[in-house]
């Protein structure tokens, strides 16, 4: 049963992708409906996989040669992520029906969305590193194609290529890691590697560990690769919700979680992971605070929240990181989709031109607030529980100063969230926008997510069983019923965090009286608006490469004599090697 379900969960969306691509734009309504049908099909099969979770290899396709066996394992971690991908994917597709109405190239749009869903499911269900890398690259390709979907806009094209290249650079880390695993253990299989990692020499294992960290950082937009995610916001909003908030960016965290047991003893690795996570969380939160673009605020907050997850893995709590990933996927998809609804209705992404949208779209206002409160980590929403779990673990297993940073970031999160909600939904309109109606498909996608953001934390116990017993054989994850979780969380440190969050909210409320203080932080504001110089570094690298390429073109003189000289020069070179070498 499991193998069939796995094949279906990957195959249905891919088949849908081919069909939708071939259908093209001939019949718009049909294209919408076919895509919805296929995405829901994938969602159903992925949910059906849930009861079948097991650590055993479910499906093996022998490829032979240096490609190993393509193996799939439907374990708890994989199934949980594939359910997120397929279910949120189908909600995003449903949302798109209204959002993309009347756009051209719908076939291409839906084909890549469905292709992405299948690839994401494949990525998390596969246990062959080559296959993981393959799906990893396909998700990057889809992300690129969808970011630059409006490819008459140079900004979209640039953002897409930036995302593709940065995530692919991270991919090199994964690729080298996969190759090392194969070269030293003779197989691409993850569980085989986790059982035998101690046979790999220490320095090679370190290379592997840090290679995977680079891969994860690039894919999950962590420090120092975070710059691509904000620029990826040129994508249509459902894509931002699906790929750049709920699924693909989690792949990095997933990778670290999978391989944590092998790497935890590598010197400085855990510390590096924690620092990467904390730095990303901090920098992105500050940038979110000063940005005026609604989607960019959400993108920075995604980077920041992913930083929490990475930090959690560094502290050794894989469970907390995955639980936060679960919560985050829900509330961030909710936030992005409702932001998409607002943007679609108003026609701008600039929050300074909004204001008072809540009066026009009360429903969107309320679901956005639910998502925002979950993001801010207020009880009893799902974000509260998972963030507290991470902070508990950080206090217990990590250095104190990083814990303090993370608590501070929690405060910042509350601050930028409330600022965002305020600017968009409250006050008076700051420009004479015209609010268009919102389609029922959008509502249909938003409501389930809002509901889930309220109650998904109740599944914590089940979730811990799923991760602990039915997956991750080399991880130590104890079942954690939610009563126990409550007990663990409702303790003194949590009150500290709550105090910080309350202070942040008060800071916002009394912002007029604190202008002196805010002015004092102008230099930080300036640095944050310039993304702390990372954008400049990126541009410099691009510029150097391009000018080198341009300079090199001079060597193609087009003159025959110089061409012959090239031949002579290489003869001399090789003869000189002979003289010197022998």
């Amino acid at each position, binding site marked *: 049963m499991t193998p069939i379900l796995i094949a279906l969960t990957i195959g249905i969306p891919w088949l849908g992708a081919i069909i939708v691509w071939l259908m093209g734009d001939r019949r718009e309504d049909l294209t919408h409906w076919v895509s919805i049908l296929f995405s829901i099909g994938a969602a159903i099969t992925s949910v059906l996989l849930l009861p079948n979770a097991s650590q055993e290899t479910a499906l093996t396709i022998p490829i032979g040669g240096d490609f190993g066996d393509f193996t799939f394992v439907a374990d708890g971690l994989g199934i949980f992520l594939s359910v997120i991908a397929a279910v949120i994917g189908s909600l995003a597709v449903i949302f798109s029906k209204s959002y993309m109405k009347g756009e051209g190239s719908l076939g291409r749009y839906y084909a890549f969305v469905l292709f992405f869903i299948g690839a994401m499911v494949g990525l998390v269900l596969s246990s062959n590193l080559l296959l993981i890398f393959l799906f990893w690259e396909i998700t990057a390709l889809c992300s690129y194609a969808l970011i630059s979907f409006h490819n008459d806009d140079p900004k979209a094209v640039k953002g897409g290529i930036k995302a593709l290249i940065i995530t692919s650079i991270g991919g090199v880390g994964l690729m080298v890691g996969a190759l090392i695993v194969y070269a030293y253990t003779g197989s691409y299989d993850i569980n085989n590697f986790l059982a035998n990692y101690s046979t790999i020499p220490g320095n090679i294992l370190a290379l592997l560990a840090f290679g995977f960290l680079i891969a994860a950082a690039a894919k999950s937009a962590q420090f120092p690769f975070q710059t691509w995610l904000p620029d990826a916001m040129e994508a249509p909003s459902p894509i931002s919700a699906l790929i750049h908030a709920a699924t693909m960016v989690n792949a990095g965290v997933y990778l670290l979680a999978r391989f944590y047991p092998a790497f935890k003893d590598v010197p400085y690795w855990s510390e590096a992971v924690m620092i990467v996570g904390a730095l990303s969380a901090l920098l992105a939160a500050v940038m979110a605070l000063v940005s005026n673009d609604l989607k960019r605020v959400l993108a920075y907050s995604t980077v920041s929240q992913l930083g929490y997850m990475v930090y959690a893995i560094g502290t050794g709590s894989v469970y907390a990181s995955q639980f936060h990933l679960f919560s985050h996927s829900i509330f961030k998809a909710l936030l992005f989709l409702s932001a998409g609804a607002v943007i679609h209705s108003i026609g701008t992404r600039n929050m300074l031109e909004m204001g008072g949208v809540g009066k026009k779209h009360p429903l969107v206002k309320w679901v956005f607030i639910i998502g925002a409160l979950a993001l801010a980590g207020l009880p009893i929403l799902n974000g509260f529980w998972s963030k507290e779990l991470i902070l508990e673990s950080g206090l217990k297993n990590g250095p104190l100063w990083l814990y303090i940073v993370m608590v501070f970031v929690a405060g910042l999160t509350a601050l930028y969230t409330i600022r965002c909600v305020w600017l968009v939904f409250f006050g008076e309109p700051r420009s004479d926008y015209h609010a268009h109606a919102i389609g029922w498909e959008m509502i249909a996608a938003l409501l389930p997510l809002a509901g889930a953001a309220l109650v998904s934390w109740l599944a914590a116990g089940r979730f811990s069983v799923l991760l602990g017993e039915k997956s991750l054989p080399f991880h130590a994850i104890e079942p954690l019923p939610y009563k126990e979780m409550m007990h663990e969380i409702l303790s003194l440190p949590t009150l500290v965090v709550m105090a910080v969050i309350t202070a942040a909210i008060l800071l916002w409320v009394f912002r007029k009286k604190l202008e002196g203080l805010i002015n004092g932080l102008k230099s930080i504001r300036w640095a944050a608006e310039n993304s702390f110089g990372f954008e400049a570094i990126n541009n410099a690298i691009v510029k150097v490469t391009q000018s080198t390429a341009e300079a090199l073109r001079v060597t*193609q003189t*087009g003159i025959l*004599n110089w061409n012959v000289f090239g031949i002579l020069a290489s003869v001399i070179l090789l003869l000189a090697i002979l003289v010197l070498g022998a």
Partner: protein
Amino acid sequence: MNLPIPLVVLITILCLAGIGLYCLLITRNLIKVVIALQLIVKGAVLAFILAGNMTGQLNLAQSMALTVIVADTIVAVVGLALAVQIRLKTGSLDIKSLSSLKR
């Protein structure tokens, strides 16, 4: 001055090839280019005969040298035809005027 014969031939071959290559480097006339190629090939013919002589396989060397002559005569013919055609189309045999393809 009593140089061994093979050495003399060897130096002749090397110089012949060198002169040919030198011409390829500095000439700007397409027909001169073909002449230079011919010079290099003459060196190769000599090299084959010398090699055959040194190993006592002269017959083999002769057949190979003959093949070389035939092959490179054909190359020369095609090269000349190209040069003629270029002259007819562009009115020049200068290599510098023949560098529209670059970068």
